[in-house]
């Protein structure tokens, strides 16, 4: 077994085998795999520096309070404490934010959510820092709470951000509404009059947490030039930098960020967490400062998925045609804006799902409240809507007496269909086909707990090891769902990625260096970048440079966009490098072969220049010689435009992505416990650049959707808006015993607008898995189940 592995020289990594050197379309293995399985891979929390201090954050125990005074003397007096900073110590800008700069670096005279940072400490040991923080005396005066739409918009409601001047302030109906986006199409009233069946229901989605495993952390090192180097786990180095520099009072070039190992992200690292705090402490003390959140603090340290209340009305004719959809989606954005406006845009524009509906009346809003701030999480506004519209599709099908899959297929969109925004879907949209595929899969065997023939295997039953049933009251149910997600940044955002390619000869062999600022958060972007460079440049050896801010922005690792965007940038820059190779070759060797004059006929393969007839006419190493090619290029997707603020019409999205699920569950109907037996998915990925990673994304995304369906929710207390379960003891995510077999059927229908025809993969599976699981539970129990996560109380009427 060990014989097929190559032990390599110290300067190379252990994976210089064929399996890590594939081109696009191959299941190339991760280049960082060996580091990750040996414990050598350094995550941001693993960093260490000589003379390093530990930072700690004092947070508000109240969700809404005025700060009357802060006394740091007791903390400063503690031996081992190097600095204690409050709002008054901030050197420059005091607020930051992704879109709206409404979030204080440290609270000034008011805290707006439970856990808001109030003061920061640097000390020589984490325990010293904790003890010091405990000695900071803060005098609070509690204020009335805004916790939902009613309290946010009631007459005399406290304003979260009085005197708003952001670009949404003018069009929102109330200052406690961050953003409002209607989408209007056709004539709903007329359609309602024609409808044979009308289903109107309210739905609710709880607040989900990304629950990445590697808590927020980073190391800030003060530099001799007065700047700071920050080693950080993030999703977007440049947007971090652009928020940090003004807060630190430094020019952007003195705030240098390098990506550290990232222990998952899922949206939670799109906003700043400890970045500014660590840098401020480092600049104040002149020493490197490391901050690592523990799990408790992590729940307060990042935004969550917006909880939502949704009201949907669907009307259909007796023949099974959807006539109209009217809906209202209220997202709770919590205390600060984060990416709420963009989440609203997504929820509104994707609110009716992948269906053709002529008459649509949609309103989506996000609130400001004293609940925890919410922002990006995998699925980004489309998850909440999908839960509701798919429940509606089942309900309407039931009213019509139609099979739920058939009803969906009848109304499914396909290429050329118009979205409610008026945007035409100009690439494949195989919605009906994806449903057909999941439905066609064989069903998992019944009563698997009896399979062994001996005593029951409780591990295969609802309740698992807890031994709650030996088969009593266990009922199987099957449910289907399909969803639509946009890929890339929408609504006119200038979304681009940058890649730098250096092509040179090392040791007689051509080597490509790929340098981008793309945040590798686990998705495998580093793998596909190397695959793309190999494919485009015909070299075997590709080195991935650490991601940092010395190269242009790669945009965010979110919105399912990185393979499309930074992968596209790598491709684009490689093409430019190839042109340069051919130009140089033509210059030097043009006389030797007529094909040099026709670069369109030439490609690079195996370190050679090859004609379309397969003839080798040049050698990469020979062409390059001592002179490297070093290029940096930007790549943009086609432009989008903002949605009209009144009608929601507009070419708002770059690309759409579709996934369908079939869930098979077994429910202990008496105890209300659920075992998901199988969660099958079918997804169109355009082109699977790395099939192994594609399946990994689909299964991972499906599992997060499963978690939202049956267990995951941040619970906020009704009386104080305090988080009640900030721990892995009480915020539960699926274990391996909660996660079923997940067959995946990958469809590859090229999108001609995208590099290689690919389609963003990461988010779509998170959408439809939740409604599919809940549909299956409904099928098993006959209950309406209008809220996720479904709790045992909902299934047992307790």
């Amino acid at each position, binding site marked *: 077994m060990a014989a097929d592995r190559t032990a390599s020289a110290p300067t190379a990594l252990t994976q210089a085998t064929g399996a890590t050197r594939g081109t696009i379309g191959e299941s190339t293995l991760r280049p960082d795999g060996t580091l990750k399985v040996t414990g050598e891979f350094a995550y941001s929390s693993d960093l260490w520096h000589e003379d390093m201090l530990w930072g700690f954050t004092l947070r508000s125990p109240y969700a809404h309070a005025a700060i009357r005074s802060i006394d740091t003397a007791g903390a400063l007096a503690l031996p081992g404490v190097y600095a204690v900073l409050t709002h008054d110590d901030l050197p420059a800008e005091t607020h930051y934010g992704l879109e709206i700069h409404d979030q204080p670096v440290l609270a000034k005279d008011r805290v707006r959510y439970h856990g808001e940072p109030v003061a920061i400490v640097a000390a020589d040991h984490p325990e010293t820092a904790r003890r010091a923080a405990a000695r900071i005396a803060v005098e609070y005066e509690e204020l009335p709470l805004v916790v939902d739409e009613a309290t946010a918009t009631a007459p005399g409601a406290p304003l979260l951000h009085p005197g708003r001047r952001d670009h949404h302030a003018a069009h929102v109906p109330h200052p406690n509404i961050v953003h409002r986006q209607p989408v209007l199409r056709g004539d709903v009233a007329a359609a309602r009059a024609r409808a044979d069946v009308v289903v109107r229901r309210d739905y609710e989605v709880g607040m989900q947490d990304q629950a990445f495993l590697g808590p927020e952390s980073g190391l800030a090192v003060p530099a001799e030039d007065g700047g700071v180097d920050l080693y950080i786990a993030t999703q977007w180095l440049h947007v971090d930098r652009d928020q940090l520099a003004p807060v630190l009072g430094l020019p952007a070039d003195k705030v240098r960020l390098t990506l550290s190992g990232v222990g998952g992200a899922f949206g939670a690292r799109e906003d700043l967490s400890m970045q500014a705090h660590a840098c401020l402490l480092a600049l104040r003390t002149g020493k490197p400062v490391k901050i690592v959140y523990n799990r408790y603090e992590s729940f307060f340290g990042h935004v969550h998925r917006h909880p939502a209340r949704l009201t949907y009305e669907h009307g259909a004719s007796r023949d099974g045609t959807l006539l109209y959809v009217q809906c209202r989606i209220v997202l709770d954005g919590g205390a600060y804006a984060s990416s709420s406006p963009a989440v609203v845009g997504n929820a509104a524009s994707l609110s009716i799902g992948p269906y053709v509906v002529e008459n649509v009346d949609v309103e989506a809003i996000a609130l400001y409240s004293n609940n925890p701030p919410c922002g990006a999480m995998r699925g980004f506004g489309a998850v909440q809507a999908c839960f509701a519209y798919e429940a509606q599709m089942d309900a309407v099908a039931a009213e019509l007496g139609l099979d739920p899959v058939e009803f969906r297929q009848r109304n499914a969109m396909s290429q050329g269909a118009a979205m409610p925004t008026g945007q035409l879907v100009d690439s494949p949209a195989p919605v009906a086909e994806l449903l057909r595929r999941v439905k066609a899969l064989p069903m998992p065997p019944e009563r698997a707990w009896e399979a062994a023939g001996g*005593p029951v295997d*409780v591990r295969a039953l609802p309740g698992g090891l807890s031994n*709650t049933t030996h088969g009593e009251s266990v009922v199987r149910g099957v449910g289907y769902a399909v969803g639509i997600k946009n890929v890339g940044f929408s609504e006119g955002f200038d979304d681009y990625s940058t890649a730098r390619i250096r092509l040179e000869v090392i040791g007689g062999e051509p080597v490509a260096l790929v340098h981008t600022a793309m945040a590798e958060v686990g998705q495998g972007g580093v793998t596909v970048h190397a695959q793309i460079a190999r494919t485009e440049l015909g070299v075997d050896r590709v080195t991935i440079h650490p991601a940092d801010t010395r190269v242009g922005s790669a945009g965010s690792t979110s919105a399912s966009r990185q393979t499309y965007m930074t992968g596209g940038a790598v491709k684009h820059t490689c093409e430019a490098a190839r042109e340069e190779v051919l130009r140089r070759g033509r210059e030097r060797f043009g006389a030797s072969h007529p094909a040099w004059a026709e670069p369109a006929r030439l490609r690079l393969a195996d370190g050679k220049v090859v004609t379309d007839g397969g003839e080798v006419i040049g050698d990469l190493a020979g062409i390059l010689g001592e002179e490297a090619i070093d290029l940096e290029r930007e790549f943009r997707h086609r432009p989008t435009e903002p949605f009209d603020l009144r009608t929601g019409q507009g070419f708002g999205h770059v690309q759409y992505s579709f996934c369908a699920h079939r869930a098979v569950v077994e429910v202990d109907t008496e105890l209300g416990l659920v075992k998901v037996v199988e969660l099958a998915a079918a997804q169109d990925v355009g082109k699977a650049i790395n099939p192994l990673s594609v399946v990994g994304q689909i299964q991972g995304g499906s599992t997060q959707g499963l978690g939202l369906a049956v267990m995951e929710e941040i619970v906020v207390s009704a009386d104080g808006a305090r988080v009640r379960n900030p721990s892995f003891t009480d915020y539960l995510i699926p274990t391996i015993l909660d996660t079923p077999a997940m067959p995946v059927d990958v469809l590859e229908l090229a999108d001609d607008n995208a590099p290689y025809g690919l389609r963003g993969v990461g988010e779509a599976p998170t959408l439809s898995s939740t409604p599919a699981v809940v549909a299956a539970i409904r099928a098993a129990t006959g209950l309406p189940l209008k809220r996720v996560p479904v709790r045992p*109380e909902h299934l047992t009427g307790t």
Partner: protein
Amino acid sequence: MDFLRPAGWEEALAAKAEHPTAVPIAGGTDVMVEINFDHRRPEYLLDLTRVAELAEWEATDRTVRLGAGVPYTRIIEELRAELPGLALAAHTVGSPQIRNRGTVGGNLGAASPAGDAHPALLAAGAEVEAASMRGTRRIPVEEFFTGVKRHALEPDELIRAVHIQKADGPQQFSKVGTRNAMVIAVCAFAVALHPRTRTVRTGIGSAAPTPVRAHEAEEFLGAALEEGGFWDSGAPLDPSTARRFAELCAGACRPIDDVRGSAAYRRHAVGVMARRTLGWTWEAYREGDGRTAQCA
């Protein structure tokens, strides 16, 4: 904070006598969480993992003397026959890693109403052997829990062992959590048939300020079995008897609403578990194996 590392039992008792505020630590699965999360900063930590005798168990005719420091994994592997209810309960504790470290002594010391071992101890019948420099006493497990996370130990006392009645009939344990593994009990239930004394005992977890027995249910069922001659006949139980037993078990709960579950659900679930586990134990009794079949 000081770290005390007694090498033997006498040394441990002396340390506890000298530092009554010392927090004993065995598997660390509760104490370390409190320290890691800054909920607790004890003056002294008293490490009991070096006291070898605490990790031993011995069986006598009627009881098992379970050292306070025997980890759950060993209970599952070694005491399945003698203590089937406790072994089932041990199997629901946390994760494999936690079962490798966590101990019944630690579970008792934490005295959480949600402790997984407690209902099984209550149902089997057990006494806690508490010791100090002043001497040793045995506390019936029913009297051990005095409130939420409070117990009957004096400040200078340590738990040395638990004396648990060996099973003389089928036992079962069942626990509701909202995940299929690694979950704290929303509520739990244990039942043990004791054919030798012709009694039935129960234990309820996480549905009252302390783990409790459902005395009324036990008495009802004991009487029903006795009067109907069921112990001798092994006849199937009347569904109405099982239902009444379940109602009385649910009625013994004094649950609260919390983030893990509602009071109403807890009461309901205890009733369901009581009915089911009674069914499983009675079937096993009827089949005459005298011990429950192991299921997991």
